[in-house]
């Protein structure tokens, strides 16, 4: 089932706007993640797809069918909530049976479906327990079970893993990916966790303050962020930003910061030239694209943090604070001065005024 959102907007009664003119198409069988900081409108968007909120403006289509006036019950969707929202007064079996009973299935069919879904999620042994007798991970499985048991057209998942501990989360991520492949249904996944978004999604839609920032594959989002917000939001530790301008001299085109220049080459030089010499830009560089021990500049090491096989090094490079992620075998001590270089082909340039990516035309 393809989902199409056209100019979708939501304003609340108190005047606060959650979503502004969102245009987004979610392909059939795709797992699309709505990613953004809290309050960016991702959950509101999901609830509009579900029919739990009605849009102030705009349209929601499932396939060719306009869904704006269709109640949630008639949309053939399933949703997994952050709180799991299991019915506390029903057993696990009762919870899974509820959507089937509402769909009017006969008893034998219902039992068969429950058995199948419970087997798939390995919750057979829990069927006669009440939700309060289950651990967080088990509750989550039951919530998933209740979602898949009715064979919906669309899965909506609202931060389903944010109440699980880190280890379980990693495990469930893999299971969810497998489950999605196996069921082959369209899924919309809401999260503020970039790790979940990057590992699970076919595509990611990044939202900020109700505005769509970029829709692309995880790879594209990471390597070609559409603007400074996306570049900053994705990646940990955060991307380094250096303010400066496009400079042109006899050697060619370069990025000119307050105290040093970085030469630009290839496509970057081309798009920088088109953007225009003298215009202000921000240069972004991911920590793994900073090299230590080689390069023409020097930096003073202020902090060194070990994350096992790698170390995070904070440096002061002529007044700019730079974070580098380098292999642990480079033994770098805080207080020392090291040569530093940038992989300039990995440099991201953003318009200093609008924050959008400087692209070749």
């Amino acid at each position, binding site marked *: 089932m393809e989902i199409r959102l056209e100019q979708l907007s939501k304003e*609340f*009664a108190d005047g606060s706007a959650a979503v502004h003119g969102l245009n987004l198409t979610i392909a059939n069988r795709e797992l699309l993640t709505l990613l953004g900081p809290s309050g960016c409108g991702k959950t509101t968007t999901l*609830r509009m797809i*579900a*029919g*739990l909120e009605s849009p102030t403006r705009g349209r929601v289509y499932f396939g060719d069918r306009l869904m704006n006036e269709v*109640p*949630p*019950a008639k*949309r053939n*969707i*399933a*949703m997994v*909530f*952050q*709180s799991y*929202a299991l*019915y*506390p*007064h029903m057993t696990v079996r009762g919870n899974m049976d*509820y*959507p089937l009973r*509402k*769909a009017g299935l006969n008893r034998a069919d219902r039992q068969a479906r429950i058995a199948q879904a419970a087997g798939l999620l390995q919750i057979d042994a829990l069927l006669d327990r009440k939700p309060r007798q289950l651990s967080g991970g088990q509750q989550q499985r039951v919530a998933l079970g*209740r979602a898949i048991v*009715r064979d919906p057209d669309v899965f909506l998942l609202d931060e389903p893993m944010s109440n699980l501990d880190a280890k379980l989360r990693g495990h469930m991520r893999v299971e969810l990916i497998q489950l999605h492949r196996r069921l082959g249904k369209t899924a919309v996944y809401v999260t503020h966790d970039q790790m979940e978004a990057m590992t699970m999604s076919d595509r990611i839609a990044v939202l900020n303050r109700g505005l769509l920032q970029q829709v692309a594959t995880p790879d594209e989002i990471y390597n070609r962020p559409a603007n400074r917000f996306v570049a900053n939001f994705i990646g940990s530790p955060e991307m380094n930003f250096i303010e400066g301008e496009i400079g042109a001299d006899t050697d060619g085109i370069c990025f000119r910061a307050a105290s040093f220049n970085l030469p630009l080459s290839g496509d970057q030089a081309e798009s920088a030239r088109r953007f225009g010499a003298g215009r202000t830009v921000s240069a972004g560089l991911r920590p793994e694209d900073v090299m230590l021990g080689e390069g023409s500049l020097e930096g003073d090491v202020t902090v060194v943090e070990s994350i096992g096989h790698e170390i995070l090094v904070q440096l002061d490079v002529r007044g700019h604070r730079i974070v580098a992620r380098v292999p642990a075998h480079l033994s770098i001590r805080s207080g020392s001065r090291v040569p530093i270089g940038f992989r300039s082909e990995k440099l991201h340039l953003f318009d200093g005024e609008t924050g959008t990516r400087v692209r070749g035309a």
Partner: protein
Amino acid sequence: MSVAASSALKRSGSRLVLNVVCWTAVLGTSFPLFWMISTSLKPDNELFLRPPTLLPLKPTLEHYVRLLSDTPFPSYFRNSLVVATATTLIVLLVATFGAYSLTRFRYPGRRLFARFTLFTYLLPSVVLVLPLYLTLAWFHLANSLLGLVITHVSFGLPFALWLLRSYMVTIPADLDAAARIDGASRLGSFIDVIVPQALPGLISTSLFIFIASWNEYLYALVLISRDDIKTLPIGMITMLTSSFDVEWSQLMAGSVMMTVPLIIAFTFLQRQMTQGLGVGVKG
């Protein structure tokens, strides 16, 4: 003496004090009840013995028999039962939907309405006697059970609405959202999910409303003058004051029968009642 032993002694000492205080309170409050039951079972000649007897020497049910056969007591009882039951049902129905609306829909003035509701409950009932009487008289409902039910509903509803609202606030909105996605209509999700969750609150609210209506005296006195539609509180007073000598045993027998339904209800629903109030107060 070791520290542990001394603190254990202290603990058992304070527990003893607590027990004494509690039991004194229990005995103090239950003695009138005991006296009521005891008196209702005493034959007339034993009522004013000196010194008084704690338990009847020759227990008898004659007062109960006479109360049920020779007096309008059964009619009063029936009227009370009708009024209290009707009041409870109406209040519960309206307040449950009202509380759902106040907690689940967004509309202007929602909070103000919720606060104002409680405010109406704070008005002393004496102030409202005259306006309510005139209004009901205008509709020719003054001297009727229906009029009394309407009056009781108008007093019970704001409180029930407030109690149930604070109860429903604690039920996660995700639950009814989940039910609606799972295929239920709004009403369906309300019945399947909200009502079972709110059950303790519904029970404690209905008990409260039932008792308030069952015991209500002032409005019943003002509104009802026909003997055949009097409720228990005024009926009993009528019986008490209409004869020259007060039939204490009969009055006590009536009081026992008036109290018994409430005690039965409380005994069975005590657990839900305390649960309901506990959660309700939090919201």
